[in-house]
């Protein structure tokens, strides 16, 4: 099982499942990360965390600890 946290920068993945619940899940989904969404991992912040993504044509940043909840393929 691969999560968004493990994706190398520059790679594109597809969301399979979001494993957390409550407000974090809602927030992640509100921002457009839903089942089947294509995500490009653009880069890591200079200190290694958070990560920058391209989702639905815009830039989004997520902490690695939150990205761990997004299961991808």
């Amino acid at each position, binding site marked *: 099982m691969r999560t968004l946290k493990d994706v190398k920068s520059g790679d594109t993945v597809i969301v399979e499942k979001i494993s957390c619940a409550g407000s974090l899940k809602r927030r992640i989904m509100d921002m457009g990360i839903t089942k089947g969404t294509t995500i490009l991992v653009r880069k890591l912040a*200079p200190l290694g965390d958070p990560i920058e993504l391209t989702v639905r044509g815009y830039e989004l940043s*997520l902490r690695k600890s939150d990205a761990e909840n997004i299961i991808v393929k």
Partner: protein
Amino acid sequence: MNIKIALAGNPNCGKTTLYNAITGSTEYVGNRPGVTVEEKEAKLKWNKDVTVMDLPGIYSLSPYTSEEVVTREYIIDKTPDVILNIVDGSNIERNLYLTTQLIETGIPVVIGLNMIDVVKNNGDSVDTAKLEKKLNCPVVPISALKGIGLKEVCERAISTAKNKNISDIKIFSEIIYDYLRQIEDLIEDRKLMVSKKWLAVKLFENDNNILETLKLDSDKKSVLEKIIKSAEEKFDDDTESIITNERYKFIEKTVSETVKKNSKQKLNLSDKIDKIVTNRILALPIFAVIMWIVYYISVTSLGTIGTDWANDGVFGDGWRLLGIGGEEYEKASKVYETERIKIDAFIENARKNGIEIDALKEELKAEEPNSSIINNFIKNTKNITATAKIENDDGNTGKNINVDNDAFAAALEAKEPNPADYGVWIPGIPLLAETILDSFDASDWVKSLVLDGIIGGVGSVLGFVPQILILFFLLAILEDCGYMARIAFIMDRIFRKFGLSGKSFIPVLIGTGCGVPGIMASRTIENNNDRRLTIITTTFIPCSAKLPIIALIAGAMFSDESWVAPSAYFMGIGAIILSGIILKRLSVFKGDPAPFVMELPAYHFPAVKGLFIHMWDRGKAFIKKAGTIIFVACAVIWFLQTFDWSFNMVEAEESILADLGNILAPLFAPLGFGHWQASVATVTGLVAKENVVGTFGVLYGFDEVAENGAEIWGMLQTDFTVVSAYAFLAFNLLCAPCFAAIGAIRREMADYKWTAFAICYQTGLAYIVALLINLYGNAFLFSQSFIAPIIITALLIVLITFIFMCSNKKTAPKTA
């Protein structure tokens, strides 16, 4: 007919720019208690019967953030006639997500498709006619920044409101609508401000706020639970996610049919900027340079000029319009100064020659000197010559001038230049007020109240206004161009460790100049807990007004050793880190575990009008505060400092404040400075921290002392030990800040309880730190007993462990 338009849209969609463009001046800015979410309302520029309400920027109508809750409440309680939904055309998918929720409310919606110029520049195109059909509501392409289509979109909004055109579109699949219809049957047919469909969706999503408002009875609740359960089993997902998924599916379909993306995926300007600005190697140096520029302009250069003008000019003697005539005045002053030195040297030499000088000195001070005494003196000193040493600008002896009797007589004729004679001189407010009071023959205490108490106190606070305005202008640029989000992105990792936000760096940095703008800079932090923590800890870093205290203690007690000043900064940083780690454990700061899911908006040039509005809105709030809470606080301190118990005007050392100092003194005794002077100085530090040194001067019997209090060093050395002096320093640096900063805390917390907590925490921490310094210092340096410090340390360790254990217990079920 009055029409209410509510502006809604995602953050960074250009909503505020549009609001500023279509309205005149903002008439009402409200603040919800507990959260700093502003409500703004104004009349439409072209039609005074139309009110435009600016709602906070939100991504969704979920019940999780304060902005979203405020927007929902507004829509439900006040039902606008039409919602003008601003959609960023260059980021259409995510923006339409909110649109699908707004349409559901049953309130007419008009879409302003913003940044249409950016869309065209990217080589993309949007079929607005088709989009209009798909969403069943008017879509007007606009550019808020360039002023395209603004009037048209407002007219469409007004006509839609008049015709009550409510969009009715199918967003979800048929099976979801089956569930929703079942839920709709549960909702009573009360007169509802929003559509049943929206309420049904919210109930389906398990939205507690709506569940409470609708007050369903227990039967209906169990039916609702059954419906939700069967849906969750069918979809193998929770209902909130089902709804979100369905919305995005609908949007994907709509966008694929209406938006044509340029097939050539070239890097646009924003991507190119971002490649450099958040580059792994360059990001931190670029960040450091930008922060240095902000600090340099707002605190060091331009900000200081502004603050000096306000403090020494407007609230001082006066100032020169456009600085014209300043140089001539300087020259004239110098000439006059030289003459004064000549006079002093001559008189001193006369004294050495046994000539009586006291009578002459008296006369020279008088407003209308008695010429016969002066003439007598000149006659008696015919044969005396003196040497006047004239200093250069660098303070070294420049040249010696011989002063004989004639030169002395000539020097006496010299008149002090009046600043009002050079250029256009505008007298300061204290002088104007004094003139006015004198014309009324006001009594001494009234004059003292107005001049020393009110103008002096409030003036020292308003003196910060220029600095604050400059800072807010710069912060508005950083925010509007999109860099602020990158700061959080770059710095998050470091600050998260201490329970702060990546954006906490800015308040702390600005705080080294002045805590007031520092605290106000915390505004840019969205998360309530992070913002509160930042507000509480910002003033731990020594601000420029605390530097004289450091200089006093370092000079008097530590013979200016070089470690004292840096140690003050390390103490501040240490207090911030410690507070972050400990306070984050308290349950009040655990309220909502806010995820760091943040948009990094595309870079763009900010709208100049918006920058100024931004700056003024925030500056105005500070000025208002100075007029209320700070005004009262200054008057009270003045009163205590000026009167004794039988309400006679007395010097500070016999005042009520001195007595209170005596009462407070035992409180400070454990910290090593239990004499009343130190406690009074600490209290006056609340008006402004630079008062501490001045108060010491007054209490030790000097009218005025140098900034570092060099005159009173000897007296401090008898009253303090090295240890108690450092404890005094620590307490004054960390304890409650000045009234201006307390006012800023109150303003940013928007809540009295939180303000009280902040002040108590700061003072408590200061007390503990000073206590430990005093006890351990005495134990190590003066071989006192180690028992007391060890007991107190043990108690503290128990307390902190207790806090940690409590917080771990509370989080345990969540992680399980």
